[in-house]
């Protein structure tokens, strides 16, 4: 599967299917491959940050830079595995893991209030002051019974986010 301009073989499709734990069907994987090749205009085998940003709907997203950190430079197999969190077949843990990953930029398994403020800055831009951001994060932690210096673990994420149900599904169009 190294050369993206070649066709996917059945073996390749099954390999990708296993790698994403069957979260996508084979038809969806073929469709995703066409999309991958369309975005990877120069046929390098991965999609660069620039190529992602050429999709206007993605470029206007406040979290685009963070997502680029996770998505750019991946080969097709890894690309599908990362996106599998958005499949309707993904479990709530898959989705929570993805959200946790977006927060945990230093990859140390914990989300501190600093991490939360950083994401909040991406989401709110210049429309909140630093003071307001600090106040919101402190308030939110304390209201849920955590101290304001507490670092959230994946289990905390599960506790906070699971009871409302998480709507994070994206449909892959199949031609």
């Amino acid at each position, binding site marked *: 599967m190294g050369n993206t301009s070649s066709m996917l073989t059945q073996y390749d499709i099954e390999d990708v299917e296993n790698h994403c734990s069957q979260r996508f069907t084979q038809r969806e994987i073929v469709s*995703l491959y066409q*999309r991958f090749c*369309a*975005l990877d*205009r120069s046929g390098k085998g991965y999609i660069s940050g620039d190529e*992602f*940003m*050429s*999709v*206007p*709907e*993605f*470029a*206007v*997203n*406040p*979290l*685009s830079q963070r*997502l680029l950190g996770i*998505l750019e430079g991946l080969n097709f197999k890894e690309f599908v595995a990362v*996106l599998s969190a*958005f499949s309707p077949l993904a479990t709530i843990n898959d*989705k929570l893991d*993805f*959200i946790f990953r*977006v*927060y945990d930029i230093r990859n140390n398994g914990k989300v501190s209030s600093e991490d*939360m403020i950083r*994401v*909040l800055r991406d*989401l*709110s*831009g*210049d*429309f*909140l002051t630093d003071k*307001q951001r600090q*106040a*919101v*994060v402190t*308030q*939110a*932690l304390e*209201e*849920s019974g*955590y101290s304001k210096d507490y670092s*959230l673990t994946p289990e905390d*994420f599960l506790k*906070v*986010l699971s009871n*409302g149900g*998480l*709507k*994070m*599904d*994206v*449909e*892959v*169009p199949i031609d």
Partner: protein
Amino acid sequence: MYQRHLDEVLADSGPKADDDLLRNLLDLSPTLSEAASAIIDDSFTRCFKSNSPEPWNWNIYLFPLWVVGVIMRYGILFPIRLVLLIIGWVIFLGLFIPIHFCIKKHEKLRQKLERGLVEFICSVFVASWTGVIKYHGPRPSRRAKQVFVANHTSMIDFIVLEQMTAFAVIMQKHPGWVGLLQTTVLESLGCIWFNRTESKDRMIVAKKLKHHVEDPDSNPLLIFPEGTCVNNEYTVMFKKGAFELDCTVCPIAIKYNKIFVDAFWNSKKQSFTMHLLRLMTSWAVVCDVWYLEPQTLRPGETSIEFAERVRDMIADRAGIKKVPWDGYLKYYRPSVKLTEKKQQKFAESIVRQLDDRKSTRSLTTGLRDGGLS
């Protein structure tokens, strides 16, 4: 998913007015879903995808047929067409250059002859790719205060339309031999150049356009309001420049039949020369051109609404879909203001949640104090 209007994309993806503030902060799912949805499929990229037809030469008796076809196209048709094209150019230049430089006194005669010659060379071009073009509707008439607008798939749109009527067109200045043609031959028709990369350019061009349409002797003006080539299955937003000239707008719809070749010129993937070569080595270029009913600005209609209305007409006639994107996003990133709008919405909802809490807190304190006294 593809028809989502820009407003919906900017729609509130902030937290809901739920009680759980921490949950609202941590729940990135709406924003992330939008991003993932855009990565997996987006209506803008679809506009510029060259959809290659299914290969039909896949079995043992069709393949030799296809090989014969290739030999015929490259070995017989292409040389004939090339010769035809060269002869056509020799005749054209042989007549155009003398006429352009020698007949300086009889301006009207010169213009008439030049127009005729341009129509001739465009017919030669069309013949060089065996263009099978069907024109529907009344032919454009020369009148003052009217402009023609059409959807844009390739530079050959201009040639296809020009062989019928000598339009003056407004186009992007190109490098190479195309640019040379632009500055010499096309300039005599009254064509106007613009430069996408220059920001002040739009005002200069608007002035030139106004000047042109007010001149009753100038050739009818043809504008491609999309501003870029689209793959003939979608239309991107029409720029309002053509619709603010206080003129009648005559829409023209162009639809290419992909049966032998896809006429979409993907300027990022191939040069115009390669594009022409591809057309010249295919069997034929088949297309339909519809001249539609002239439209004027309705009372109370803005020029943007006017542009959209005309785009509707063209998209309907040609049987192509509409998307709400600006074609220039092919060259530029979307404005930061769009992201800022989303951020503002989110910030406002956060401030609202903080304020709600402050007010309930002061309410309970007030009650407590009231109770005590």
